[in-house]
């Protein structure tokens, strides 16, 4: 499914449609969003590198992690950093987002302003001006596409930092301008859900065609920290998470998909969500003295019990014991069970209609005698 997302971003948008956009959401209890971001970034990089993609290159807006980090990432995925400038460009909003360093350099108190990375990096010195940011992204993209016709992918890490510096509306304007621009093939961004109001996250969700949320597989119960169970949960959540994808089609149809993701030494891995985890989730949550769950045997036994409905629907004539028949009927065996005897491993409920005064299926109003 993560592959499916990458393919959708790779294939880009149709002529005259908005570019597909992906929001990656995470929270502090399961902060794996940046791993997913890196995964998608490297997947798209290899698609672009092999020229399998609609876009010719990636413009990465680095707000929370430095260009050096991404250089390491590209290296670890086996890309040649030196030649990468033909398809990979970074707009560095991390090294000097507010122009402090350039102020200090101007006043002579510090020396260098380089981010120390050998990637092609353009430094943005004022992230508060989103118009400027927008035009620098487009400019970098045009450099990538060469003749000005090719399209490119925009990656933003992370929108949360943008939202801290500016308002929701201006960030929304930036994203929607990017989405509707002709030469943007697709875009994706990372957002820390718990740092923003719901209206901000909702506004950004409206603008994305796909939303991937990383949730803890097992929701932790509120309890004192230091409780060994909570501790292992915390540790689990740093390694594994539930990857929930919500896809909006053009016609408005919404699809939900779930997968499990785990962070391993070699990278990130997606597996189908196993029911085993749900079972452990069930067995972990209620810790009371009472037996709240049924064992497998108990569950089977319960399934076998025939409920005392008078109409069992097994084709036999319905015989109802109304409390009097046994007096009139000389038959030795009164028909007081609703079900014939069956083999002994089936459960059975024996039900007597115990009252004389109400006829079965009587049309009479039972409250007739009340004086209302």
């Amino acid at each position: 499914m993560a592959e499916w997302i990458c393919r959708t971003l790779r294939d880009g948008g149709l002529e005259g449609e908005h570019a597909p956009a992906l929001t990656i959401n995470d929270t502090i209890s399961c902060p794996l969003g940046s791993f997913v971001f890196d995964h998608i970034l490297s997947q798209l990089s290899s698609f672009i590198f092999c020229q399998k993609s609609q876009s010719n290159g990636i413009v990465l807006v680095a707000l929370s992690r430095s260009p050096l980090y991404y250089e390491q990432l590209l290296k670890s995925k086996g890309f040649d950093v030196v030649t990468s400038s033909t398809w990979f460009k970074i707009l560095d909003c991390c090294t000097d987002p507010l122009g402090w360093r350039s102020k200090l350099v101007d006043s002579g108190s510090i020396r260098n302003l380089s981010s120390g990375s050998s990637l092609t990096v353009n430094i943005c010195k004022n992230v508060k001006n989103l118009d400027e940011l927008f035009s620098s992204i487009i400019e970098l993209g045009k450099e990538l596409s060469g003749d000005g016709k090719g399209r490119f992918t925009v990656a933003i890490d992370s929108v949360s930092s943008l939202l801290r510096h500016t308002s929701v509306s201006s960030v929304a304007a930036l994203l929607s301008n990017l989405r509707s621009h002709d030469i943007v093939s697709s875009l994706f961004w990372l957002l820390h859900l718990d740092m923003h109001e719901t209206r901000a996250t909702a506004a950004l969700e409206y603008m994305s065609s796909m939303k991937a949320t990383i949730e803890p597989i097992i929701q932790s119960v509120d309890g004192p920290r230091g409780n060994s169970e909570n501790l292992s949960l915390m540790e689990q959540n740093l390694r594994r998470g539930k990857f929930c994808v919500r896809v909006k089609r053009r016609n408005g149809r919404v699809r939900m998909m779930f997968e499990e993701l785990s962070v391993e030494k070699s990278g990130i891995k997606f597996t189908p969500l196993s029911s085993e985890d749900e079972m452990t989730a069930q067995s972990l949550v209620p810790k009371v003295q009472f037996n709240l769950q049924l064992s497998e045997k108990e569950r089977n036994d319960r399934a076998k019990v025939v409920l005392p409905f008078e109409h069992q629907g097994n084709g036999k004539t319905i015989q109802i014991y109304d409390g009097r028949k046994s007096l009139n009927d000389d038959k030795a065996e009164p028909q007081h069970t609703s079900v014939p005897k069956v083999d002994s491993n089936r459960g059975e409920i024996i039900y007597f209609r115990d009252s004389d005064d109400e006829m079965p299926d009587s049309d009479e109003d039972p409250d007739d005698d009340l004086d209302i």
Partner: protein
Amino acid sequence: MANAPPSTLLDEALDGKGAAVFSTSPAAGGRMILVEDCVETSGAFVVHHLLKRCLSPHSSDVVVFLSFANPFSHYDRILRKMGCNLSVQRDNKRLMFLDMLMLERLGRDRGKTSEDVFIALFGEIQKAVELSLSHAGRQHITVIIDDVSLMEVDANGSSNLVLDFLHYCSSLTAQFQGCSLITLNHDDVYSNEDRPGLLLKLEYLADVVIKVEPFSTGLATDVHGQLTVSNKGIHDGSGKSRNKVHNFHFRIKDSSVEYFYPGSKT
């Protein structure tokens, strides 16, 4: 002092087992450590521990200490008891102590805005980092901030300015491999509703979060509280210490702190 000091549970939680000396292992650099404490249990001892570790005679690390909380003499007295002389270290140029309690520091008395003060402060830190990393080969430098909530007071309550400043400081750790950042913050001075921003942002920024909390079942004579160390840093090295959560108890003694696993002490 022929051998390296014995590694405690805290050191192990920070570096992974076996790596006793934090400061000299190359993988340990470039990290950001966030210490979170609360009113009942102060996390100051963790800061002292880390400060002492950085200044240990077995390494040649440099520390830039940004104090918004206490004057130099305070730390000097505590660290002297722990067997580390800060005045000597300061004379050796291994400790650069920036006392932010002094009004005249960075021209605050001359009516500068708090943003200008923070820019100048960052300039001093970057200068120190550049200087120390340029001349002595592969040295480490650690920037310690005590504490973030008082820094916010200094910034006239603008948490955005504090976050900008911390972003710049952490960009130093990204830029220079040998630079680490350690910050202390109080957990309970922020209300959940109006803005969880500062605390959460710091947690997102940090590679290691050390939470100092009172003992979950109440006060005890021989246990003073518990530490939870969440290590989400990605280390390219052995990969031992990644994505781990450690929890242990501590007892603060006169000149040292004892760390032990729950139930392991009689």
